[in-house]
Every structure is written in C-alpha cells, then in structure tokens.
C-alpha cells in the first residue's frame, strides 16, 4: 500500500516538476556519460558519493538524500551539522534506488566508477550529472555549480582556494628554503596490510601545492598494498603523511610496522618528519571543504602562519 502511494507520489512529482519550472530557462550540462538538461535551479539534490556531498554543502545546498559515509557513520563529523534533515540512501556502492525515486529529486550527482551501470535508471528518475574524475574536486565543484545554478558561488570558492594555495606555496618555500620542493609519501595502514598511495585526492592536492613525490612513487595506478614488512624501505621519502582509521586492528598493524627496525631506519622517521593526518579529510571527503581542511592541517604541521583568506563557513 505504502509503496503504491509512493509510486503515485513519485509519478505525480515527475509529471509535475517540469511544468512547475517551465518558466525558468533550461541549462544543458555536459558530463562524463552525456548531457543533462536541468530546468531552473534544482533545490532537491541527491548526492551519491562523498565528494559530491562535501561540494553540495560548500555550495550552500543541503541535499535531500546522501549516501552514508565510510567511517564516522552515518556522516562525517565535519559535514554533519549541515546535513541534519537528509535521508540516507545506503552505501556509495549500493544506493537504494527506490528511496531515491521516492525523494523525487531534481538533480542527482553520481560517480563514474561507482554508478556506470545504474546511470540510465538514475537519469530516468532525475537529471543526473557524473564528473569525469572522482579525485578532481575542482572540476566537480564547477560541474555542480553549473548544474545547480550557483556558478558565482562556485567561482568564489575556487578563487579563495587559489589564493590560499598561493599563500601556502610562498610560505612553505620561505620556510624550507632549498629543501623545497619536498618529496612526500602518502601511507595508510589497514587491519592486515599497509598502503602506499601514488594517486588520489590527497596526492592531487599535494601536487597542486607543489610537493613532489619520490621517483619510485611516480607510477600508474592508485598505489600498492604491502603485506610484508620487508618492503618498508619502499615507503621512504623526505616526509611521510599517514592516515588510518581509529580501529584497534588498524592501530595494532601500525604499532607492529612502526616498531620494526626498518621503519626506524626511514629517512622521514629519522628526521621526525612523519605526520599523522585525518583519514576523513585526506582520503574520504574528496570535495572543496575537505581540500581546505587538508590545507589547514598542512599549515599546522609545518607551523606556518595562516592568514584569514576564507569566507566559506564550513571550510
């Protein structure tokens, strides 16, 4: 019965939505899987991956539906305050399609690696946009700003970001002198293995800031998984950033690996240039707010004075 009522509601909304906004002009947005025609400024946005949720909040939108976060469930603490009324749609890898339809959204944002097969269904529920690269938070911001009719806000956020990046580069160059650009490695520990990241959100932000990577880490693919402590030397760099979940099994792995003599022999460890960073900001947020928070952490780790360049309340 409930489902039937839901169907009628969805059908009515779908039939009604275009007429209601027909007086607004239509925007055509090109994205990874094609084009989406969006009428007016969407108010009911559904976000199907973490970066899109972060970006929506930065643009001042509270989505009607979002997928659950990977840790700090159901939503990362830094976004929770701005997402009090949302409906949770399950995991990023398996969102609840019926509930998405029930929410009668007027814009859906998905990810190319996750939602390729359900894209046609999503597009029938509401105009759907899919950014090309899940790590490129700036392209995502531009795409979502255009799709939601908030281009000015998007530009403002990017200009701010650019100013912060330039400030950071100038300051760190002054601080490190001829040690700059510094070669940094991004590591992570899991319950039964360790990881070196060659690419990803954190790496793309570090690249933009001017950090470099050890020659052995400049390879294709996201990175590698290590199971043998014998391969600890492969982690070496001038500085090391480590993120990991706050989980007893993960902490035990980290304790075992970091008490190994080979670990103590790493250049970054000997010079005490090892920084533990927030996994949510560095690996999971994947939007403009997360990027700004990552930059905040870097200012702190390198003891750099931070000018107040920000207007974005959440950043």
């Amino acid at each position, binding site marked *: 019965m409930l489902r039937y009522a839901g169907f009628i509601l969805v059908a009515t909304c779908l039939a009604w939505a275009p007429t209601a906004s027909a007086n607004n002009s239509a925007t055509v947005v090109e994205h990874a899987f094609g084009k989406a025609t969006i009428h007016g400024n969407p108010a009911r946005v559904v976000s199907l991956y973490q970066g899109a949720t972060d970006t929506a909040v930065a643009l001042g939108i509270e989505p009607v539906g979002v997928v659950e976060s*990977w*840790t700090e469930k159901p939503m990362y603490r830094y976004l929770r305050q701005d997402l009090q009324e949302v409906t949770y749609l399950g*995991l990023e*890898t*398996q969102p609840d399609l019926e509930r998405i339809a029930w929410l009668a959204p007027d814009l859906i944002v998905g990810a190319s690696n996750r939602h390729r097969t359900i894209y046609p269904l999503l597009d029938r529920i509401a105009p759907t946009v899919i950014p090309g690269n899940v790590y490129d938070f700036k392209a995502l911001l531009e795409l979502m700003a255009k799709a939601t009719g908030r281009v000015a806000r998007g530009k403002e956020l990017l200009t701010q970001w650019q100013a912060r990046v330039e400030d950071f580069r100038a300051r760190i160059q002054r601080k490190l002198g001829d040690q700059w650009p510094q070669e940094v490695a991004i590591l992570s520990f*899991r*319950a*039964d*293995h360790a990881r070196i990241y060659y690419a990803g959100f954190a790496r793309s932000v570090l690249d933009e800031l001017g950090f470099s990577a050890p020659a052995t880490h400049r390879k294709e693919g996201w990175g*590698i*998984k*290590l*199971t*043998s*402590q*014998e*391969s600890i*030397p*492969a982690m070496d760099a001038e500085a090391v950033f480590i993120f990991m979940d706050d*989980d*007893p*099994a993960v902490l*035990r792995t980290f304790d075992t690996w970091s008490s*190994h*003599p*080979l670990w103590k*022999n790493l250049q970054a460890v000997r010079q005490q240039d090892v920084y533990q960073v927030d996994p949510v900001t560095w690996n999971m947020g994947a939007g403009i707010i997360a990027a700004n928070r990552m930059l905040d952490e870097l200012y702190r780790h390198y003891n750099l004075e931070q000018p107040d360049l920000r207007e974005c309340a959440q950043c």
Partner: protein
Amino acid sequence: MLTSLLARTSGTLVCLGLLLVATVSSLVFGHIPVSLDMLAASLMDYDPGSLEHLVVRTERFSRTVTALIVGAGLATAGALMQTLTRNPLASPGILGINAGAMFFVVVGATLFSLTSPSELVWAAFTGAATAAFLVYFLGQQAGRGVSPVRTVLAGVAVTALFVSFAQGLLILNQDRFESILFWLAGSVSGRELEAILPLLPLFCLALLIALLLSRQLNLLGLDDDVIRGLGLRVGQVRLLIGLVVIVLAGTSVAIAGLIGFVGLIVPHIARGIFGTDHRWLLPLSAILGATLLLAADTVARLVIPPQEIPVGVMTALLGAPLFLHLARHVRAVS
C-alpha cells in the same frame, strides 16, 4: 613409479633436497636480497644492526616456517581425505573445511569485532572443525558407514551454505571485508609465530597419528566387508583419521587462509611417484606439499616487488591445469 626400496629411498632423498632448496630460497629471495653467507651469519651469529640479518630474523624466518607447516598440513590432510572418502578429488576445500573457516572468520570479524591474529586463528579453526563434522555426519549412510558420494555432496552443500552466509555478511559490512581480504586470498606473510605456536602441539600429534595409522589406511581402500574380515575396526579408524584431517586442515586454513590446490594435487604427485602405500605416501605428501608452498610463496614475492601476489593465487595458478586434467582422467576411468 618407483617400486624398489632403493629407488624409493633415493626418491625421498631427492625430495628432501628439493625441500632444502625451497627453504633456503624462501629465506634468501625477496625485496632485499640476502646472500648465503649473510643467511648463515644471521642464523648463527645474529647482528641486530645488519639490515639483512634483521629481514631474515624478523620477517622471512616466520613466513618460511609458516609455509612449511601449512604446506605439509594441507597435503597430508588431502591425502588422508582422498583415502577416507575413496574420492581422488577430495581436498579440504571440497569438503567444506575452507568454507567453514571462512564463515567463522567473517562472523568473528563482522559481528564480534575480533581483530587479533590469535583470535581469528581460533575462530577459523572452530569453523573448520564445525564444517568438517557436519560433512562427516551428513556423509554417513545408515548402517553402511561413510559413503564417498554422500560425503562429497554434503561437502558441496555445506560449502555453498557457509559461503553464502559469509558473502551476505560481507556485503552488509563492506568495510570489514577489506580487513580480511588477504586472509581470504590465502597468505603466509606477516604471520607472527606467537599466533601459531598454540596450535603446533595438536598439529604435530595429528601428523604422528596419521603416520602410525599408515597400515590401516592401506586397508581402507578395500571393500568394508573385506576390511572387517581382516579384523580392522573400520568405524574407529575412520573417526580417528577424520579427526586428524580436521586438525591438520583446520590448523593450516586457520594460519594461512584459503590456499587452494596444495591439498588436492600434491597427494596425486606423491602417489604418481611413490605409489599408494601410505607409509611412503603420507611423509612424501608432507615433504612435497611444504616444497610447493614454499616455492609458490617465493615466486609470489618476486613477481611484482615490493608488492606480493597472495600465495593462494599462486598455488591455484599452478594447480588449476592439473585439476582439470585429473577431473577428465577420473571420468574416463569410471
């Protein structure tokens, strides 16, 4: 096939030589090369300041020992199972032991948040034992003891049941799945000897019992009535062998995860070379099983350094073609 005592003895010596080569290779090859002199020095005259000594002592020694135990355990358990069920395709994987261990590890990791290796080892062992008992009793035919066909069918059913439960749990707890991925694919690296030690006495006892029962095992291939006529207590011997199999296979799976094919192909290789006499078959299966797993693990860490291919993948890669050949051959005979 080697038939004379002299031929068999020299064959055994060759196999032991291969085992020695595999053991030394496992200690010497890896991300950081270690010379033979270095290896000897690290074992005799340990210097904690030397990188090579450190790698041998902290990393390679434990994984070599693990591969030795697991390889020998799986191969012996496989040989025993094939005799017990009179089915040449029997192995721990086919009789539900792997699936049982997997299900209990998944339940432990998702529902009870077990994380330490020693806890998971016991969870896996309990699961393996539970599944094996289930298969063993489902495989009984009223009044006629263990029926090979029923046992295999029961094994398939129990495997399907446990695997589907485990998969359901893993889909609901996707983030936990990551943390046991390497166990699921099978691996002997990073195993701390402390987590393995409590299982060792039981393991050695089981191996000893298997060797002592060699003569009785030789008779099990005969018709049940004939065996009884020869004065053997079939039921008791079968139960004892069943327990030995559970301990050997259960321990191996608990330590190293789901490593396929060692338990299946090694007994066939041993039988092909040394015949069906269990006094030769069992020890040779153990030696060859340990050799195969050591070799697979050494190759697995040399293919894409510093990463490693899970050793379960390596043994499967070696084993799959043989398995297919075997399956075709057996069908032609029956």
